């Protein structure tokens, strides 16, 4: 007659283990954030670059690891070793850009076009100041909107 409570305890234990395993598996396999569906901060390439140069603390707080909509003029279009499209947007510094790695390659994009790119900002990579190479502000997993 006392076997029922023991059975119930075992069942509850097994159920908890199964729930824990399913939760762990789901979390471990959680997909990356969908950039296209994430709310974005609006800015433009010139201002974005400027704030990273003039106030890096503010820039990091406001923009790093955030999804941005960046409006800018295309300076160059190329392809990296992974065959991902790299679009550089003009800034006020001739040798520096907002460097956007595209998730899906944008068709028909040309130098001089005005574009709106949405992507994840990973920050400013410093370049080599003592050798005169300015850094870029980097956006990854970008999509073109206009």
């Amino acid at each position: 007659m006392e076997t029922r409570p023991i059975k119930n305890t075992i069942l509850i234990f097994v159920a908890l283990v199964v729930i824990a395993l399913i939760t762990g598996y789901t979390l471990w396999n959680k997909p990356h954030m969908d950039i296209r569906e994430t709310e974005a901060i609006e800015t433009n390439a010139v201002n974005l670059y400027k704030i990273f140069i003039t106030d890096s603390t503010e820039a990091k707080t406001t923009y790093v690891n955030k999804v941005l909509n960046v409006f800018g003029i295309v300076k160059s279009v190329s392809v990296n070793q992974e065959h991902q499209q790299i679009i550089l947007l003009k800034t006020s510094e001739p040798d520096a850009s907002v460097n956007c790695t595209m998730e899906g390659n944008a068709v028909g994009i040309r130098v001089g076009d005005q574009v709106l790119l949405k992507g994840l900002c990973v920050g400013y990579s410093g370049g080599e100041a003592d050798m005169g190479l300015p850094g870029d502000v980097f956006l990854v997993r970008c999509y073109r909107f206009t």
Partner: protein
Amino acid sequence: MRKKIIYSAVFFLFTICVEGNCFSQEYFTKNGRISFFSKATLENITADNNQAISLLNTQTGELRFHVLINAFHFPKAMMEQHFNTDYMESEKYPSSKFKGTIAEINKVDFSKDGSYKVNVNGSLEIHGASKNITGVGAISIKDGKLSATSVFKIILKDYNIDIPSIVINNISQQIEIIVSCQYEKRMSN
């Protein structure tokens, strides 16, 4: 008088060249590729970063890298999150740097197609800790385009990267780093 003008002109040009570094041959990329691989019991760990900045001086052999840690992209979101928060603390140490030299760079003929094995040494800074490293790489010149590759290993302990005890047996202490860059010539300094 004429000699004086010529001497002045030569001196002027020399000054401009030194100031403007016109004798140097610098190549750079802002989209170099750095990957790493770690063998793990449950699942191998790989990540790619295609946003590495690198500068190579083909006259002096000086070689530099600057890499944003949070630009490493993992197949799984959870891996990326753990990498940034638990292991690399990317908010505190946002970038990794290498400053070194390619030994005997004068043995590489940058004027014609070819592939050259080179030795690299320098200081690698990861997670706020610096360590001198040496490694082997390859420089290739094809149709006037310069590319470089290298594969080397680092030990996590050398850079004060702690692995939580719960997963210490699942993650290798040694990480393989794969570097691959396609450089372009700097047109101005």
